[in-house]
């Protein structure tokens, strides 16, 4: 079972997940329409790219966008959650041991303490995400069961991973649970709202181009949309 999950199943998962996200990115660009979107993408590509980069940077650098400055609490939770979510799995020592075994190379790895902190950051951040959905009426009204399901899918590998890491209960059981939930998470990426992993960049890029070309960029406005 372990060999299957970390062998063929893992490769299928990677293929579907990353291939799927790539397909979504390509489909997004193919579905852009200069006339319907009312943005002259092609003739003004340089303005567009400038706007796109500005827009993406404004929203991935903490506290750069006005929106993030106005909501410092949310911004901290949001970045803690996402940094923990992305950095931990990629640079975790245990994951890189597997990588080394399979491909003969590995990435720089995190110290155990640091990795633990990141994982907890993600968990606590996720917990706050749940709490604000319940606590704030403006978030509650738009929250659906689907939103909670996505949080469960996303957090499950961290919960199981931490249980296994602290060797609480049956290690093998939690290790398997960790691998399975991790693969579910990866497989969900292209097919659910988690596709924002790539579509965030596509959407911001498009809006950045819109503003960069049409709504101010060509008039010299440096506003980062």
């Amino acid at each position, binding site marked *: 079972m372990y060999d299957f999950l970390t062998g063929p199943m893992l490769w299928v998962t990677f293929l579907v997940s990353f291939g799927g996200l790539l397909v979504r990115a390509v*489909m*997004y*660009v*193919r*579905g*852009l*329409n*200069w*006339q*319907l*979107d*009312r*943005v*002259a993408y*092609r*003739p*003004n590509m340089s303005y567009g790219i400038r706007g796109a980069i500005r*827009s993406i940077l404004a*929203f991935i650098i903490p506290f750069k*966008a*006005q*929106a993030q400055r*106005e*909501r410092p609490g*949310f911004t901290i939770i*949001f970045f803690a959650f996402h940094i923990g979510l992305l950095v931990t799995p990629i640079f975790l020592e245990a994951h890189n041991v597997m990588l080394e075994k399979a491909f003969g190379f590995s990435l720089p790895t995190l110290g155990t303490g640091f990795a633990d902190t990141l994982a907890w950051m993600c968990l606590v951040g996720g917990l706050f995400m749940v709490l*604000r*959905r319940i606590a*704030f*009426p*403006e*978030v*509650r*009204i*738009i*929250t*659906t069961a689907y*939103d909670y399901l996505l949080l469960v899918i996303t957090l499950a590998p961290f919960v199981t991973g931490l249980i296994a890491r602290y060797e609480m209960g049956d290690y093998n059981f939690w290790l398997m649970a960790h691998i399975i939930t991790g693969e579910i998470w990866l497989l969900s990426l292209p097919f659910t*709202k988690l*596709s*924002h992993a790539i*579509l*965030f960049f*596509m*959407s*911001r890029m*498009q*809006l*950045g181009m*819109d503003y960069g*070309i*049409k*709504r*101010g*960029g060509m*008039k*010299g*406005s440096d*506003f980062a*949309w």
Partner: protein
Amino acid sequence: MPEGKFCNKTPITTDEQLKATLNDKGGKQYYEEMNHLEVDSEKLWGTIQKTMKSRLKTWLEICAHCGLCAEPCFLYQVNGRVPEQVPSYKIQATLGQIVKKKGKVDNAFMQMCMETAWSKCTCCNRCGHYCPHGIDMGVMFSYLRGLLYGQGFVPWELKIGAGMHRVYRAQMDVTTEDWVETCEWMAEENEDEWPGLEIPVDKVGADIMYTCNAREPKHYPEDLAEAAILFHVAGENWTVPSEGWEQTSLSMFAGDWECCKDNVANVYAAIERLKPKRATGTECGHAHRATVIEGPYWMGREDGQPPVPFLHYVEWLAEALREGKIKIDPSKRIKEPVTLQDSCNYVRNQGLKDVTREIISYLVEPGYFVEMAPCKEHNYCCGGGGGFNGIGKYREQRNMALRKKMDQILDTGCKLVIAPCHNCWDAIRDLEEEYEIGIRWTFLKPLVIKMMEVPEHLLPKDE
């Protein structure tokens, strides 16, 4: 498929239809008929499949339901922060549902959508910058308005407004003769005070072609005279077209895209015919957006640009002041606290924040200009944007919407507001009428005329 006499899926295209619909006071029969209007689900879904591409589809799909769009929306703020005013909720509950149900929605649902699209969003685009995913609700509501218009679910005034454009090619019943006569009348009226003042109609090859808002010839002809005086003093070689002089587009508020294209085609045809080096329009936000920012796309112009460089009035004025074509008498500079209303349609939608402030630097004594908070691209809608000002059915909601601007103005402590946009000017006038906070409001033209130095040779000679 029952359709009403006034409320139906067919745009108004004749003078008779227009007059008949206008005579239905307040749209009483119109809204009654709307209760029986059937939804053509097939057409609705067909349109969505044809026109809803990556951008809108992705926006609907990836909205993370985080609620960060709530606070940036002024309508959420002024309406007691009720969750029903959260932008994400407003669009998911309307367009989102139409898409989910593949167009199979009923009359009551469409009426709810109409109310949401025209009284709970002014398409000010402010939320777009506050959404982590870059979802611009203004764009989505504008799209929804198009779908609703196609099904006949549009406020009475906007059905008429789009009809006016279709019949008269102007938002009001101003004919070519009316327009040309108004130009002649205004030139004559002011010629004693401004010897040699002209409003040249259809001059070929002028340096600049001027277009305006039909409300001006209809109700504020002095605005046209003021434009003429400023061009005269600036020594501009200018003209107005006899056809294609109207650059507003109530059809854009209504979601009548076919008509939008026709409006712009009319202005661009005037440009092709008169071959001016450049064009400019009046102090109006949505007119500029319709003709200059969105217009090129409706016309299928691949470069996204009008046929000749087309400036907003603030750009022309800033240039005239910068180059000394118009000089301000320093003793007449404004010496009282004054604030500026940023119009969503050319500040948030074309980055014209700096030129407006450049104008202020010439007109206002240093130390007297007070910015609203927030301002520039972060400024709030005047409260009457996107057609909100003109819809009787939603007057109460509109009056509530004005409160944000009222608070912003009160916070500056200014009694004078410069509003270089027709719609903002109207909204600020209405907010003073409604709430009596003791403010004055002005366009730039009359202000500059009062303050400029007039060269000796342009002054009237004593008899």
